[in-house]
């Protein structure tokens, strides 16, 4: 371990709470997003236990409605959206491009405090009556009829949005202005491309949800008539405004995870990624096209048929770049030198689960089919496959991949592989039955259901108990490894990125000397410094077949 690094460079609580070091800020975010993950996870646990019986096992309908609402709000706004960008992105982006920090280090710290203040308002809402509007806050239920603590929650989410906007701004400016000499756009790691695309969505989309929630909150507080039809408002206007952000928001949640996968696969196949420029372009394409599909959440509101046709068509188009990525990742495995390390297991698990989630999106984008499966458990299964099977696997896989860099320690590999498999199995057992439930007609957000749906619900809950174990294990052993793990060294895998050329953990200024980049990304052939491909030893997997 290096003697001095970012974790021990200065001591004391003030040196952490007032830090401007992007790596320390990433760690502050790690603690806070993990906290909200626990909160959201606790609600999920209660939901799945409650749904063991048709009449509901655990809580009253009022409480159940608060559970699924708060599960969604906590997980989406305070865990998923910040997770990879604010933890891994903050930590790695400057190092990956050879910079000392982000463009605006103090604004980076401000982003974290804004996040905390937003989180504080939301926690206040949760603990003083709770929130029962659904995370989607549809009006006039949220703005007129709900008796729960809507106003503080709406204020909290509004404030939290600025955390995203500032992070996005920081990332974009950093990528444009702070790349080290020789680090051209097409030499950047794909993780950086992914953060860049995500940041575009951060700054263009988030202001819309901010103003939308502000309007809904004002309607509630001052009895205005934006969305309340009794006062001349239009509830569907709310949905358009809400989904204009919330659809791109799902791309905020998945693009960074895709960036993680694009780093892991070349590393553990020991070859360049197949189709680098196509993957980079796909990230941008997803971010752009993703702004034009929002009303596929509204096919059955009574919107014009022409509108529905347009949004269905565009929704199919946005699937194409994602498919391109999946094909390219798979092709990277061809003739690779593949090792079964934990990050690779997470990456491959991601591809499998994202595949199912994405393919089921084709069902939902189909207008005729959506009539049947809209607002059923089919939708719930679809988005959990992408957000949990995709984004969370990407986050946890990324945490494992960069853990040695972040902490200087290795996690216990065997236990980690076991946990990854447990997670994958538990996840499928939890959510696959929900596709069937939805197709059979079980609506979502139901605290009680007809008895014929019980078997599948019990299967789902059983799976959830395994899934929970899959999450608990890494939380335990990763924490354990910080003290007791083996020392990692600079480049344990080894991988080709700039971040692996500096110490583990890195010094506060990231590099002793600003690097000059002369190599292409993921280029194992021309990197003798990695300690691979010794003279005379077999280098390629299979000669020239």
């Amino acid at each position, binding site marked *: 371990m290096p003697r001095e690094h970012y974790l021990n460079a200065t001591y004391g609580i003030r040196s952490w709470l007032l830090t401007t070091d992007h790596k320390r800020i990433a760690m502050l975010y790690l603690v806070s997003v993990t906290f909200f993950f626990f909160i959201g996870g606790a609600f999920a646990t209660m939901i799945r236990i409650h749904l063991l019986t048709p009449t509901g096992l655990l809580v009253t*309908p009022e409480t159940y409605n608060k559970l699924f609402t708060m599960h969604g709000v906590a997980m989406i706004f305070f865990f998923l959206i910040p997770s990879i960008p604010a933890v891994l992105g903050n930590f790695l982006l400057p190092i990956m491009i050879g910079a000392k920090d982000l463009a605006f280090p103090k604004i980076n710290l401000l982003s974290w405090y804004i996040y905390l203040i937003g989180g504080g308002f939301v926690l206040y809402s949760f603990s003083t009556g709770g929130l029962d509007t659904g995370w989607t806050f549809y009006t006039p239920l949220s703005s007129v009829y709900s008796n729960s603590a809507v106003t503080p929650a709406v204020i909290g989410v509004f404030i939290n949005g600025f955390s995203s906007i500032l992070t996005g701004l920081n990332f974009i400016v950093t990528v444009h202005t702070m790349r080290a000499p020789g680090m051209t756009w097409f030499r950047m790691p794909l993780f950086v491309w992914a953060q860049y695309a995500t940041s575009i969505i951060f700054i263009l989309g988030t202001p819309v949800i901010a103003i939308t929630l502000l309007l809904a909150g004002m309607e509630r507080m001052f009895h205005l008539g934006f969305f309340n039809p009794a006062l001349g*408002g239009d509830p569907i206007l709310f949905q358009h405004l809400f989904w204009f952000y919330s659809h791109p928001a799902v791309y905020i949640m998945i693009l960074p995870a895709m960036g993680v996968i694009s780093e892991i696969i070349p590393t553990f196949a020991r070859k360049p990624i197949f189709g680098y420029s196509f993957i980079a372009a796909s990230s941008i394409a997803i971010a752009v096209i993703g702004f034009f599909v929002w009303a596929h959440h509204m096919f059955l509101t009574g919107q014009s048929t022409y509108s529905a046709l347009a949004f*269905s068509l565009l929704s*199919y188009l946005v699937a194409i770049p994602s498919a391109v990525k999946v*094909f390219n990742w798979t092709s990277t495995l061809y003739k*690779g030198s593949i090792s079964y390390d934990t990050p690779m297991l997470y990456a491959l698990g991601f591809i499998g689960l994202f595949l199912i989630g994405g393919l089921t999106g084709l069902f939902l984008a189909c207008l005729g089919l959506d009539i049947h499966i809209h607002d059923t458990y089919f939708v719930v299964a679809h988005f959990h496959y992408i957000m949990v099977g995709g984004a969370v696997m990407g986050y946890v896989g990324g945490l494992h991949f960069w853990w040695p860099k972040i902490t200087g320690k290795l996690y216990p590999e065997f236990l980690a592989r076991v946990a990854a498999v447990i997670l994958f199995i538990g996840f499928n057992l939890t959510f696959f039955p929900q596709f069937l439930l939805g197709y059979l007609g079980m*609506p979502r*957000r139901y605290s009680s259901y007809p008895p014929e749906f019980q078997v599948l619900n019990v299967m789902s809950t059983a799976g959830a108990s395994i899934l929970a174990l899959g999450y608990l294990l890494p939380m335990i052993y990763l924490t354990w490894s910080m003290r007791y793990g083996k020392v990692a060294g600079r480049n344990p895998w080894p991988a080709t990125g700039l971040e692996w050329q500096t110490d583990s953990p890195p010094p506060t200024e990231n590099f002793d000397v600003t690097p000059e980049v002369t190599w292409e990304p993921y280029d194992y052939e021309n990197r003798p410094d990695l300690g691979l491909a010794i003279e005379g030893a077999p280098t390629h*997997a299979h000669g020239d077949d």
Partner: protein
Amino acid sequence: MVYITLISLFFGVAITAAIVYFFFKYRRTHPEQLGVPIHGDMRLETAWIVVPALLAMTMFAWGAVVYVDYRRAPVDTLDIYVIGKQWMWKAQQPTGLKEINELHVPVGRDVKLILASEDVIHDFSVPAFRVKMDVVPGHYNTMWFRPTKVGRYHFFCSQYCGTNHSLMGGWVTVMEPTDYAAWLSGASEGNENPVLAGEKLFADKACITCHLSDGRGRAPSLNGVYGAKVLLADGSTVTADEGYIRESILEPKAKIVAGYQPLMPSFQGQMTEEQILNLTAYIKSLQSQPVPATGSGIAPATGKK
């Protein structure tokens, strides 16, 4: 469904098989071994952009056809008014017979539901029929279906609407036409005919003072107007459907009929959804009444003389 399932299965299985195969076939056999550097392949990239795009278009097209048909109810439907409110459903049959959390329909007939909400957004869904539609306060939505099998089928509220959202369901009972007719007449006592109720409202709310049937009042005659095209002051036309009637009652200044002054007061806040539906039923019943030569809002027929 089957089509998309098959395509999904094909790609899902193919990619998973490829991954599993590569995972084992190309596993590292020597600690310093590298993979073969293949940067990309233009033909492959083109292929796997074009082929999925074409397949996606077929999926889109098939779904679009089904949806367009769903959004356009056929002409000769059995119309039932359905009101959703926290947390129950009221359905009103054409004779005025009301049901709560139940819907009786005859088999083999096209049924159209006109959906209204009294409070928040609901959704009326019948999984067995593969149909649903949001019920949105502030405007009507319609949905249609043709039941093909006698029986009892769940219906659910499928848009989260508050505390008892999960309890807001019931049963659709599909009956043989003769049984349906018998049921309809058997339980009719005590239920007012919506047309008669609407006629009474038309007088009580003083609509009759302006909307004279002979066309000589301050407002257009409503004879024959339901379903016809109305000519508006700005030159455009609009079809007088349930939504137009409702808007005319609640927001009369939204669309002014050509040749008339914006005199009509709004009844916003003064009528329940049920009363509006009854007025609509009465106005529908005027379809076959003689249209006066002047004093009607109906647009003149266009076309070659």
